[in-house]
Each structure stands twice: as structure tokens, then as C-alpha cells.
């Protein structure tokens, strides 16, 4: 219960901070919109209304991942700059309970992206939002957000010894957009890419949202998405244990 309360307070606290930060708030919403706009123009030119609608759903997941990737890569370094990393690591609670709400708050900012992208598509490009299973759509969206947040957590802990983790997060933005089939069908990519796609939760989150919109089977994709998210979380905790033990032993947490 105490851990849940910490997660809840941490999430709300960081969500408020990020919502008011121009970089994580304004830019996080507008940056994917630029790419969504170009994609909308491209799919509109092709004259395929269904592809345009699916692209608008994909653009919402693009936003969720964009918000998370760069910020998660920089999460540890930001605490280091603030001079709070050592204090947070030294607290009695496990550090993962402090870091996880940060990355979950980042992916929750993706909700702004979802709303803005769908409205952008509706009012500027006339894309009708026709969801066959609205209830399942509202199951698929939080599942995608949580799993992306957990992927961000894994990314954040991986970057603990990397001073410029934001650059790695930044570099992972487009590859995930491409490999997870957010705008391009995975079948169009080389065969060797598919196992990578399957290992990434946004692929299944996108599938779930697409299936809920077109009336397909949603729950298997949601289950795969959440299972992968859980896997990222567990892997993140294990990696964190290892890197923190190493940083304590070698006194390298501050990287100075």
C-alpha cells in the first residue's frame, strides 16, 4: 500500500511539473504533430481514407513514445544536474519506486498528444474518428501508455552511466516509430526487423488501438502489450539493482 501511494504521489507530482514545462509540455505535443501533419498529407495524397485514419491512430502512439523516449533517457542525468540523485538513491524506499512514476508521468503526457493529434486530424484533415469498440479502445490506450512508461523506465535505468542519455533517447524516437508499424505496416519492413517489432510494446499497443477501431480482436494485443511492459519493469529493477550496486562500490553515481 505504501509503495502504491508513493507511485501515485510521484506520478501526480511529476505529471504536474511536466505539464507546465515548455519542453515536456508544449514541444512534446507539437513535435509529433509536425510529423503527423506530413504523414496526413502523404496518406491524403494516396486517397486511401482507411490508411489516413490508421495513420492518425499511429500518430497518437508516436506522440506517446516521443514524450517518453528523450525525457526518459535524460531522467537520471536531470536528477544528477539538480544534485538530487544521491539523495534519492539514499532514501529508504527502492529507487525504482522513485524513477518509475517519472517515466509513467512522461508517457501520460502522451494523452495530450493523443487528444491533440486526433483533433488536428479531425479539424484540419477531416479524418473521422470511427471506433468500432470504444470501450476496448479506452482499455487499449492506458495499456499502451503504461507499457511505454515501463519501456521508458528500462531506458532510463540503462542510461544511468551515460551522461548524455537524452541523445540516446532522442536517437530511439524514429526507429521505434518505424519498427513498431505506427505509420508503416510491419509487413513492408525486412523480415529480420519483425522480431524486434514483436519485442516492443508500442507494436502491440498500436495493434490493440487499430483492432478496437476496426472491430477486430483487441484483448490479445492488450495482454501482449501489458506482458511486455511487466517484463520491461522487472528487467529495469534488475538492471537498476546492478548499476546502483556498482555505482556505490566504485563511487561513480555522480559521474564527476
Amino acid at each position, binding site marked *: 500500500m505504501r509503495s502504491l501511494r508513493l507511485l501515485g504521489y510521484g506520478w501526480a507530482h511529476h505529471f504536474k511539473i511536466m505539464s507546465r514545462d515548455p519542453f515536456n509540455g508544449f514541444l512534446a505535443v507539437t513535435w509529433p504533430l509536425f510529423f503527423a501533419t506530413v504523414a496526413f498529407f502523404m496518406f491524403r495524397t494516396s486517397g486511401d481514407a482507411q*490508411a489516413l485514419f490508421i495513420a492518425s491512430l499511429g500518430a497518437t502512439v508516436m506522440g506517446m513514445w516521443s514524450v517518453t523516449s528523450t525525457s526518459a533517457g535524460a531522467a537520471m542525468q536531470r536528477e544528477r544536474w539538480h544534485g538530487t540523485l544521491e539523495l534519492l538513491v539514499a532514501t529508504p524506499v527502492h529507487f525504482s519506486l522513485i524513477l518509475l512514476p517519472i517515466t509513467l508521468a512522461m508517457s501520460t503526457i502522451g494523452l495530450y498528444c493523443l487528444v491533440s493529434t486526433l483533433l488536428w486530424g479531425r479539424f484540419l484533415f477531416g479524418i473521422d474518428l470511427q471506433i468500432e469498440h470504444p470501450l476496448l479502445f479506452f482499455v487499449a490506450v492506458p495499456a499502451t501508455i503504461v507499457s511505454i512508461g515501463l519501456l521508458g523506465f528500462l531506458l532510463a535505468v540503462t542510461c544511468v552511466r551515460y551522461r548524455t542519455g537524452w541523445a540516446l533517447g532522442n536517437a530511439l524516437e524514429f526507429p521505434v516509430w518505424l519498427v513498431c508499424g505506427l505509420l508503416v505496416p510491419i509487413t513492408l519492413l525486412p523480415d529480420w526487423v519483425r522480431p524486434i517489432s514483436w519485442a516492443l510494446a508500442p507494436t502491440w499497443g498500436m495493434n490493440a488501438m487499430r483492432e478496437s477501431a476496426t472491430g477486430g480482436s483487441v484483448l490479445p494485443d492488450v495482454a501482449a502489450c501489458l506482458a511486455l511492459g511487466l517484463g520491461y519493469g522487472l528487467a529495469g529493477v534488475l538492471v537498476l539493482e546492478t548499476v546502483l550496486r556498482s555505482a556505490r562500490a566504485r563511487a561513480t553515481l555522480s559521474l564527476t
Partner: protein
Amino acid sequence: MTSLRIFFVGGLTSYRALFGWLTPWIFIPTLLVVPVFQILLFAYIGRAANLESDGFYVIGNSLQSAALPCVFAMGHTISGERYQQTLGFILTTPAPRLPLFLGRALPVVANGVFVSAFGFACGVLLLDFDPPLSSLAPLLLVIVVTAVSCTGLGLLNGAVGLRIRDTSILSNVILGLLLIFCGVNVPLDELPGWISTTAQGLPLTHGIEAAREVAGGASLASVRGLVAMELAVGAAYLVAGLLLLRYFEEQSRRQATLERT
């Protein structure tokens, strides 16, 4: 002579400082990996939607990637100096501003050319893009002109940095607008009229058009008008940037807002 020294020595120092900051750990992910995946993303969208050839997207996105260092680095010339608390020292020197800032632009142009050329090379290796050998030299010229032009816009961005705290957000917005407006991934005649009209006054637009014609086999002479237009647009932004720098510098002295953080 003093101006030449400021231009070349200042430019060289700035170049060394830039690469002191842009370590491989930042340079490779942000300036090499990101542009390549942007090219791949749009080339595959083009394939999915049965639109243009791979070459269309390789050329558009590779040239747009030249804008990435040009807009960001020039924006950083002001905000970075302020962050390191050296802006006041620089602006109190009697050094003429023209060589001071143009010297800083030189390595930025070189950086932009390298990033763009890398994008073209990856396009050849990874996608169905095979420009004729005879087009390589004209393409390189178009890349250089486009990088110069984008640096002009970057200088204007840097000048605005004397007034606003965070140029990185503005730089991102500029890059996003260039992506939409300049025909990078969508032919200009398929964009709304007001967008394609606006694009005529932006860097990249004419450079991309010239590069596509050259890669299609046209001679450099046949695209000289486009290249000249690209250069003229860049020069206009450069002049506007220098004038705005002078204006904001005077304003910041008068209102004591130079170190606004």
C-alpha cells in the same frame, strides 16, 4: 586584418568548442542516427502509400537534415554563451560583429554539409536511390548552398536568442515547419496554396527542387536559377539575422536584459 583574424581564428575556436561539446556520444545519435531513420521512415511511408520514389525522400530528408545542425548550432551561439556566462564578455569586446558571427557560422555550415552528405550516402546504401555519378559534384554544391541558406535562418534564430530564454524549443519548431512547408516529403503542388507560396521564402525549398532535378540527370546550368534563389533566400535571412542581432544587442544594453535566464 583584425576582422579576418576574428573570422578565421574565432571560427576555428568555435569549431573546436563545438566539437568539444558535441562529443561522439551526442554527435552520432543526434546528427547521424536521427536523420538516417527519418529518411527511412518517410521512404517507407512513401512505399506504403505508393507515392514517390525512394530518391524523392532521400533527397528531401537529407537536405532537411542539414538544417538540423545549422538551426540548432546557430541558435546555440547566443544561448550557449549565456549559459556559460560568456555572452557579456563577447558583446563588450570591440570586435566587429559581422566577422564575429559569420566566423561562427563557418563550422556550422561544414557540419551541415557533412550530416546531409551522410544522409545521401545512407540513402544510396539502404534504399533504392542511385544518382548518376555525373550528378555528385552538382549535388555537393547544392548541399553546400542549402547548408549556407539554413545557417542564415539559424543566425536569425540565434538573434532571437537574445530575447528568449530557450532557443531549443524555437529551433525544434523551425525544423518542424521546414519539414512541412518546404516540399521535403510532399510535392509543393500537392500542399495547400498558402503553404507552397510561403515555402518560396524559406531556405531548403529551392535547394531540394534543384537537388531533385540534378539527381534526375539535369545539368547544373539548368538549375542555376534555383541554386541562386536558395542562396538569395539564405542571404536575406543572414542579413535579417545580423540586423536583429544588432537591434537586440542595443536593446539588451539599454534594458539590462542581456543575462536574462
